[in-house]
């Protein structure tokens, strides 16, 4: 029998974008056991919310994640709307749905790119990053921001869809219908990509159910779960969304990294269709239940109760629970269950009998929350590089945003 070793991957590792530690038990190159230890970036956000009112917590919630920031505020404001019984106008429901799907597009494209990077397929990684820019531009045109959009609020949304935004959405749909499939074909048709991802990090159907896997991680194992289908919220009440599972496309779900890739790719096409439905059916009318924030806060201060909301974020079901006590303007308590929290429980199962070299890919395959963006170095037309100062960068950002917003 070979000698056993215990090796840590993380907390800081070149293959990981965020700190987490996986202690791997190895026999030679084979992983025979794993223990995962999160906690390196626990920020006590739920505790911090106790000193803040529901409007202030929106901005705290938005900073849980740099990619699915809107998903978190949607789950949070929906939980507050449930606790305080606050209705949302139909137009706002449609705008919320639009931003949720835009966020899914950019999250899935970023993930697909990073997955390619992790297996050493750098040209596909760059292709993925180029594609993602288009949806980031649409988000910037709508909200003025690329990461934390500040679109959602209690009882509606803060930004409306202007003709300029509608046009950028239309352009984006046309662009992706033309440009996305070459990226997909390059990766799925590559024998090395297939060899690196097929039968790696397998999670069976039964394990996915018992270990409460969610989102694309569960769907890749053949679990037909999608909250947009089984519990329609916002505009998903007006059109049906089917869960994307590999067996519907290829006859079988392997539950491996390759299937997680395929599910996310097909969800990109699905999101484009949903955005079509949203833009076609966008109702006229108000985008806010109440414009005056002081009135909203006076109303939530009188509310007593616990509210819950689960939404289908890009990585899976995101659940927030909020308690409001009458007479207290602050949130009494708040619980956030991000999708990675649910999916991370399955990591030790996915590691079994895999090679050490595949460990970062397996960790990345559930798309753990990653937020990373560098925009400090630019190359001018003559090809010379120059570093931009913070002030110059801010001016350039504002200039681009104004251009995208048609101002």
């Amino acid at each position: 029998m070979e000698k056993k070793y215990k090796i840590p991957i993380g907390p800081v590792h070149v293959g990981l974008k965020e700190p987490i530690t996986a202690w791997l038990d190895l026999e030679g190159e084979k992983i025979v056991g794993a223990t995962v230890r999160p906690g390196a970036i626990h920020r006590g956000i739920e505790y911090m919310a106790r000193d803040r009112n529901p409007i202030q917590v929106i901005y705290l919630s938005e900073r849980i994640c740099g990619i699915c920031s809107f998903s978190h505020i949607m789950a949070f404001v929906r939980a507050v709307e449930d606790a305080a019984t606050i209705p949302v106008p139909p137009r706002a429901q449609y705008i919320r749905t639009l931003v949720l799907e835009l966020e899914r597009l950019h999250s899935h494209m970023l993930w697909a790119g990073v997955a390619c990077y992790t297996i050493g397929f750098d040209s596909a990684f760059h292709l993925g990053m180029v594609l993602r820019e288009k949806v980031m531009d649409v988000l910037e045109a709508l909200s003025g921001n690329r990461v934390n959009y500040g679109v959602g609020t209690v009882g509606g949304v803060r930004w409306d869809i202007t003709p300029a935004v509608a046009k950028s959405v239309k352009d984006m749909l046309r662009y992706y219908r033309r440009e996305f499939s070459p990226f997909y074909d390059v990766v799925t048709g590559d024998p090395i990509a297939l060899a690196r991802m097929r039968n790696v990090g397998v999670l069976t159907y039964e394990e996915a159910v018992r270990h409460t896997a969610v989102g694309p991680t569960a769907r890749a194992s053949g679990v037909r779960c999608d909250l947009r289908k089984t519990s329609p919220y916002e505009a998903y009440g007006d059109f049906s969304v089917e869960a994307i599972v590999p067996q519907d496309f290829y006859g079988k779900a392997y539950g491996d990294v390759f299937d997680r890739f395929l599910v996310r790719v097909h969800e990109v096409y699905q999101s484009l269709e949903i955005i079509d439905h949203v833009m076609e059916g966008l109702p006229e009318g108000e985008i806010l239940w109440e414009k005056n924030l002081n009135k909203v806060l006076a109303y939530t201060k009188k509310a007593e109760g616990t509210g819950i909301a689960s939404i289908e974020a890009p990585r899976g079901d995101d659940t927030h629970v909020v308690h409001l006590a009458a007479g207290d303007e602050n949130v009494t308590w708040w619980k956030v269950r991000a999708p990675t929290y649910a999916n991370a429980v399955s990591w030790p199962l996915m590691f079994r009998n895999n090679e050490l070299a595949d460990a970062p890919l397996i960790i990345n395959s559930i798309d753990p929350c990653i937020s990373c963006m560098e925009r400090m170095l630019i190359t001018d037309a003559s090809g010379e590089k120059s570093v931009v100062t913070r002030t110059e960068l801010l001016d350039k950002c504002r200039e681009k945003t104004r251009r995208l917003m048609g101002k």
Partner: protein
Amino acid sequence: MTFLNISQDIPPVPVPAGEITARIAEVFGEGSVGRIADRKAGRDDRGWFTDLWLSVEKERFLEMIDLLAEFDFPHFHVISGNDDGEAVTLHYHLSLFRLAGRGERVGVTVSVPVYKTDLVMPSLFSRIPGVEYSEREIREMLGIDFDGLPNKALIFLPEDWDETIKPWRRDETGPGADDVRHLS
């Protein structure tokens, strides 16, 4: 037993939320069924799915989970909780029929008061292994032990954390003024 029987070939058979509440009321009494929230969505404000709020005493908690499992394998979301004075109240957030048809999911929250005289809960780990992170989090944040949970190591708190401090508690075991540093 439902907990052992999970198969891709056996699709869940959804039942209306009313049938679940009637069964719960029959076994655990009328008082165990709390709020029933019908969720609406879309342009016409059409009703789609239901969220139920149930409550049970600690001694009969596993019995209630097993009864819910007669309908479908309960998908576990998370445990939330609060220090309510004499007891720490835990809320188990679950879903039934999450793999069923359009609008057929039933959200179920089971609330259990855990009195401070005996801060031990039966673990759900043997039934639903996906509860591991949440039970470990409640253990370190609210100081509740879970009987049957195999791994009781810290999960989110640092290795050198003083385990006598329970971050989410509001009594003497919670963080004191000296333990909190305001950044702004």
